């Protein structure tokens, strides 16, 4: 029972990171209709910058700020410099270019920093609190959860309560109509990429201290899990990303805890395959609203 409580708590904290990263995939999918396979590699570039800034200044928080900034800048560069030139109307070219981008970024990081894992310190203790003798969340887990909840809350407010959010949603759903209403759709697309890639950078930064360390492939599994989350939740659904993140996070830790770490990726793939077979649009995907 103690073990179950511990695994559930850890699963929720892990799931929050998956949810955050999945949310970044949802944002860019909604904005640009691209499954951004390069999201993980782009996020790792931002984490490397954070690593450097933290090493140089001794401040985790400056590192965090620089990761967000790098993520945002990468979003602009990738959208304006690369994705903007990919033919629209079919998601496949965008996906292929994104996969190419993964190779370029990961090779570049590998050449610059080598294959070794660089340990990254968390800003808070990673040893779990004991509640009635049962280990539950660590202070760092709590920090991760709080950051994830705050960021999701801010994004929810941005998208539903501000005029920028209204324009972002309208541009995603009906770009031509939005342009006819004076919305600067290309700018909204860039903002979507900026938001998405900054959120992904944050998620990767939160995850790396709990993993082996930082190297060019640090976000590979994060991407796979978050992609599963996004598909489970529905690529169009931010709520789906949140709930899917929790489902995958808890599933992962339970399987790891009871069956072993090697089984966990298989469990995630089984979940992905099952959802794709039973409800390919995702569990929380909106009903087909658009006619003609």
């Amino acid at each position: 029972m103690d073990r179950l409580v511990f695994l559930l708590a850890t699963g929720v904290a892990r799931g929050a990171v998956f949810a955050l990263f999945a949310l970044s995939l949802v944002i860019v999918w909604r904005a640009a209709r691209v499954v951004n396979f390069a999201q993980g590699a782009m996020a790792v570039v931002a984490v490397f910058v954070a690593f450097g800034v933290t090493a140089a200044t001794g401040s985790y928080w400056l590192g965090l700020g620089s990761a967000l900034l790098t993520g945002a800048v990468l979003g602009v560069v990738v959208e304006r410099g690369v994705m903007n030139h990919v033919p629209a109307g079919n998601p496949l070219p965008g996906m292929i270019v994104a996969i190419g981008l993964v190779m370029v970024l990961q090779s570049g990081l590998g050449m610059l920093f080598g294959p070794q894992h660089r340990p990254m310190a968390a800003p808070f203790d990673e040893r779990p609190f004991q509640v009635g003798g049962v280990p539950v969340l660590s202070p760092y887990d709590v920090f991760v959860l709080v950051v994830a909840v705050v960021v999701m809350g801010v994004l929810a407010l941005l998208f539903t309560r501000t005029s920028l959010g209204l324009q972002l949603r309208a541009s995603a759903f009906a770009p031509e109509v939005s342009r006819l209403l004076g919305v600067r759709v290309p700018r909204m697309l860039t903002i979507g990429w900026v938001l998405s890639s900054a959120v992904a950078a944050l998620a990767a930064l939160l995850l790396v201290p709990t993993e082996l360390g930082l190297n060019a492939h640090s976000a590979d599994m994060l991407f796979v899990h978050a992609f599963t989350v996004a598909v489970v939740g529905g690529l169009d659904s931010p709520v789906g990303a949140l709930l899917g993140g929790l489902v995958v996070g808890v599933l992962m830790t339970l399987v790891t805890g009871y069956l072993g770490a090697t089984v966990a990726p298989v469990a995630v793939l089984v979940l992905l395959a099952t959802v794709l077979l039973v409800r390919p649009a995702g569990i929380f995907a909106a009903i087909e609203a658009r006619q003609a």
Partner: protein
Amino acid sequence: MTALLTIESLAVGYGGAPVIASLDLAVEEGTVVALLGANGAGKTTLLRTVSGLITPRGGRILLDGDDLAGVAVEDRARCGLAQVPEGRSVVAELTVEENLQLGALWRHRRRAERRVAVDEMYELFEPLARRRSSAGHQLSGGERQMLALARALVAEPRVLLLDEPSLGLAPRVVAQLLAVIRGTVDRTGLTVLLAEQNVTSALSVADRGVVLGLGEVVADAPAAELAADPALRHAYLGF
């Protein structure tokens, strides 16, 4: 009267086929011009070219004397050119209120001003007020067309391009919508280019009728004259 919208020697085509060969048209400020003609006559193509969704092969489009060449769709909207595309173009995923807010956004920067402008639309189109929190896809055909029109009008455009607003709607609803359009024109001096297959309805609110045939203006006459002259009607409109 001066022409607010002037189209000179316009040529438009898709791929190899020309849809509009060389079209000239001037629309005077504060008037409704009905753009008539059979399917394939080039009505929708003309409207989409004016709003910037299609780049013409040649010719000029002038709004109040300014050439619109190279002006992006969203900037044309901000110059006061509003298009309501065919097929009730409400954003299905957004609510009625959000659709209207979106339409009002660039014209009314301040939230309070936007509120006033959107509320005016609810007064003009009462059924929308009752459905303000319904999503676009939950609306009836008439409500959707009403919303598309209200969303264009809330930006207080100078020129309104309407593409087949009567399509698939009950005659009573069409009459209501056209009455609102005529009322707005008379009240505010709005200029309307109304593409319609429903000739009788369109001519009932228009000042002038322009008949397109295979991308050319084949008749251009005051609406009353066009509606009353059986020879003209028969030759160009087929009834």
